[in-house]
């Protein structure tokens, strides 16, 4: 089993090296790729000197485009498992094993580490909690399966998930839509309770001023996504 940790990073020079080191420590068999999403700081250099492979985007694509670059890399280079880890230190690499476990066991195609199943003491603003709760219900309704945390980007997929995400990945605020997208393409989903930390550095990509836009855009994407036809998931041997 070849495992790849995908770290999307935008101006995370202060924390990305620590995250890379921690991943090598926690999962020595895992390769690490940092997708530098057009950072203006030393993110790429920091990640490279920590030993990670670095994919440097020529300009900022946003979180969805950056993460998808990692999945394309995973697909082209024949990885069996890919796990997304945030560059800001929010996702403790020590918890990676828990998220990957269902993939390795073959019981799920996509496994999401979530904060709301009784582990850890994650604190969040009321507004944000309501938003997260609302999307969790909406996604649960769409995919007819209980989902508790649709905003977690701490997520592992198998080869089938890598194949899907390499050709279709939501662009702007991908976390919520990803679950609906994966479900639509017949991936088996599972949630795993994990602990998360407060972010070491950087800011959430979901800022207060943008939350209204976020809610409207994601709701629209979810509803339209229900009526969208499925994409053809690439097969082995297809051009990467």
């Amino acid at each position, binding site marked *: 089993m070849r495992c790849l940790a995908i770290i999307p990073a935008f101006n995370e020079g202060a924390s990305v090296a620590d995250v890379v080191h921690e991943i090598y420590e926690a999962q020595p068999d895992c390769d690490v790729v940092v997708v530098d999403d057009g950072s203006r700081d030393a993110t790429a250099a920091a990640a490279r000197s920590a030993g990670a492979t670095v*994919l440097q985007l*020529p*300009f900022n*694509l946003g979180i969805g485009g950056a993460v*998808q*670059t990692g999945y*394309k*890399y995973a697909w082209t280079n024949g990885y069996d498992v890919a796990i997304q880890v945030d560059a800001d230190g929010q996702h403790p690499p020590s918890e990676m094993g828990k998220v990957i476990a269902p993939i390795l066991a073959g019981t799920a195609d996509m496994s999401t580490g979530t904060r709301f199943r009784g582990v850890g003491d994650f604190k969040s603003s009321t507004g944000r909690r309501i938003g997260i709760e609302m999307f969790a219900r909406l996604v649960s309704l769409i995919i007819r399966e209980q989902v508790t945390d649709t905003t977690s980007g701490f997520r592992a997929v198998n080869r089938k998930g890598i194949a899907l995400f390499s050709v279709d990945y939501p662009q702007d605020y991908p976390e919520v839509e990803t679950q609906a997208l994966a479900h639509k393409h017949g991936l088996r989903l599972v949630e795993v309770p994990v602990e998360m930390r407060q972010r070491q550095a950087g800011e959430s990509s979901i800022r207060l001023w943008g939350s209204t836009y976020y809610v409207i855009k994601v709701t629209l994407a979810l509803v339209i996504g229900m009526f969208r036809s499925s994409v053809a998931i690439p097969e082995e041997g297809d051009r990467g």
Partner: protein
Amino acid sequence: MTHALSTILASAASIILLLAVLELVRRRRLREKYALLWILTAIVLLILSLWRGLVDSIAIALGIAYGPLITIAVGALFVLVVLLHYSTVISALTDRSAVLAQQVAMLEERLRRLEDKQSDDH
């Protein structure tokens, strides 16, 4: 304004639009593909400006008291269609530039790996 003057002004505007679009295509500053909608817009506006009877009969059929409103409405409609068309073009361009950026990033990494390997071999 008399009928004749407004007809002349409206037709002149449509003809200028048509010529401007054709000139842009000639200088290769506008692709034929995107010029078609504009040319269609200019021709429809030209017909409506010249053929006063058509505008009046449409206005009567729709129960609109002020005839020239039809020309304005049709013009606005065409502009909306052109804008919507451009939004789809921009979306396609955005998608393509993202794919290109991703491939550049992956190729660069591959090149770096090859160069490292080559310098190790020497």
